[in-house]
């Protein structure tokens, strides 16, 4: 017997699309549709209930509070996946486990990180940031001096241009959302507006580019348009309220919201104003793309509109038919997310998801979609639009424009290309097992 019928209420399944998608208003407090959805399958029986008792943890004095707390020991599996766990003499990647997180803020310990030559051990008292080149007066800043400036605080995602690269594979790889999309994270960053510092140095009106350079063992550098510097760039010195994580650029990094992660130069030590792009190694090779037909893109910069479902996704199992909340993140380097549609039937029909406020510029927006799973096969997808009208391309459209690998990718750690922003599909079978599929 269902709970709703026990209450004498007729189940009201306000379906908006095929395979059980329920109107998002069900999440907005009206309650009726959710109750109906749950009632339709969620039977409740008191027969097997265990008697309630006080557990041991309620009957004894608890543990000592540490000065810096870490996650519960029961959450030890909530960890980044590493590409180079033994610290071999090469680059290393740590991917955010999106399938185990919710909300919009990536905890600092789980923010993705890529380092091409290890994480430098930087003494903040000795670190310097120099601004020079086509300026009236070259200047040197320290963490201490920047900390005295008025800080701007904003949410922003940072995404590696190679994020989601496993989806260039001609066959879907059976790995988690984090293994596929874990090279994007979202934080609240606080720092000094780059325009403030450039104005103090007196940047020349003929300077169109900046070389931003880090203090790592490759002096990693990228060419940044001055236009972006005066739009919304900052020198970030705090991440979610605390100093930057070592792997995220401690003690200071460039933040160019919505642009390739690699351009958000970490360990920032030098900005040189110049009149032409430098064609640095990373903008010449890694972060420039080959198109089908052999033409190539350079100075791509923009991380385009994208979304993916985190719950449920590969690695999760639906234990029983009934009500579930489909949830995921959407973001765009162009601006705010305008709309996310969700499908449970592989794109045959779509319903509009609820967006969690506030919906912020160039930041994660969490979307949710109420869903009643009937126990039959389903394919879950999400598709995002941004406020400029850009839409996440369907996979067929994307592959036609950008291509895919000739052979299935051998490992999710490989980067056959960059800037994948098409749709992710999670296929659910009749047992509730979830696979990564293309649909």
């Amino acid at each position: 017997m269902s709970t709703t019928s026990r209450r004498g209420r007729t189940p009201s399944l306000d379906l908006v699309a095929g395979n059980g998608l329920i109107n998002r208003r069900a999440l907005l407090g009206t309650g009726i549709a959710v109750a109906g959805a749950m009632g339709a399958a969620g039977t409740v029986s008191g027969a097997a209930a265990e008697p309630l008792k006080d557990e041991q943890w309620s009957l004894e004095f608890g543990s000592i509070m540490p000065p810096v707390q870490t996650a519960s020991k029961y959450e030890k599996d909530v960890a980044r996946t590493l590409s180079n766990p033994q610290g071999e003499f090469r680059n290393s990647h740590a991917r955010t486990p999106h399938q185990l997180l919710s909300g919009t803020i990536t905890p600092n310990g789980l923010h993705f990180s890529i380092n091409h030559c290890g994480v430098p051990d930087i003494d903040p008292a000795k670190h310097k940031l120099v601004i020079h080149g086509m300026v009236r007066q070259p200047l040197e800043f320290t963490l201490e001096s920047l900390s005295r400036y008025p800080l701007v605080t904003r949410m922003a995602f940072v995404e590696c241009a190679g994020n989601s690269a496993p989806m260039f594979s001609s066959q879907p790889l059976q790995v988690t959302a984090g293994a596929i999309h874990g090279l994007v994270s979202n934080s609240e960053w606080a720092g000094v507006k780059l325009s403030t510092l450039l104005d103090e140095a007196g940047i020349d009106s003929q300077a169109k580019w900046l070389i931003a350079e880090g203090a790592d063992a490759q002096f990693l550098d990228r060419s940044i348009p001055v236009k972006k510097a005066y739009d919304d760039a900052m020198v970030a010195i705090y991440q979610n309220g605390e100093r930057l994580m070592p792997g995220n650029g401690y003690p200071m990094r460039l933040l160019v919201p919505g642009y390739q992660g690699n351009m958000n130069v970490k360990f920032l030590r030098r900005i040189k104003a110049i009149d032409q792009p430098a064609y640095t190694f990373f903008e010449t090779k890694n972060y420039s793309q080959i198109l089908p037909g052999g033409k190539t893109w350079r100075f791509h910069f923009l991380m385009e509109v994208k979304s993916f479902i985190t719950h449920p996704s590969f690695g999760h199992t639906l234990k029983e038919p009934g009500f579930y909340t489909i949830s995921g993140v959407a973001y765009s380097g162009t601006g705010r997310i305008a709309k996310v549609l969700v499908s449970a039937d592989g794109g045959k029909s779509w319903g509009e998801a609820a967006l969690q406020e506030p919906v912020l510029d160039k930041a994660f927006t969490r979307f949710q979609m109420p869903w009643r799973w009937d126990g039959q096969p389903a394919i879950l997808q999400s598709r995002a639009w941004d406020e400029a009208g850009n839409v996440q391309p369907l996979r067929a459209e994307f592959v036609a424009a950008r291509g895919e690998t000739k052979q299935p990718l051998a490992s999710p750690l490989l980067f056959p290309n960059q800037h994948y922003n098409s749709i992710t599909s999670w296929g659910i079978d009749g047992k509730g097992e979830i696979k990564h599929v293309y649909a």
Partner: protein
Amino acid sequence: MSMRKPLFVVAAALAFGAGAALAQNSGVQSPNLGKPLSEADVKAWDIAVLPDGSNLPPGSGTSAQGTKIYAEKCVACHAEGGKGGGAPGAGPLVGGGPLTNGIETPKTIANYYAYATTVFDYIRRAMPYNAPRSLSDNEVYALTAYILALNKLIGENDVIDAKTLPEVKMPNRDNFILPYPDRI
């Protein structure tokens, strides 16, 4: 001189009167906590080379000179003849198929780089991987010449210096498109 007028100057002008607006970039409103330097002070860090050859240092090198340095300092990772594979992550410095082979075609100096200055710049800032900034400028010129000659982008006996390096014609230079030209 800067012609840019940040918004806060306008705001400050409203707050403090017109006199403040006239003093843009002069330190009235902005904290101005940067320590003034001269370009000479920055010289040791000013290593970025531009495609037109700007900021290339004095010095020169040839492929023959580079061969010896390569055998000593590079071959362990990049392997004989720049074939790569001596260490994980050390890709080949030679070869490279046509980009029409597909979107996953390995990008190499010969089939991809737009400017030869990038080769010099990256060696100077990042190599050897275990000892960055340990090469002299002449050594970097010589290694650049060695790699460019391996790729047949210059002759075996060509001297690479601040004048000749930017003149090296890179095959893929004109094959690039800007997906978002209005963002530059």
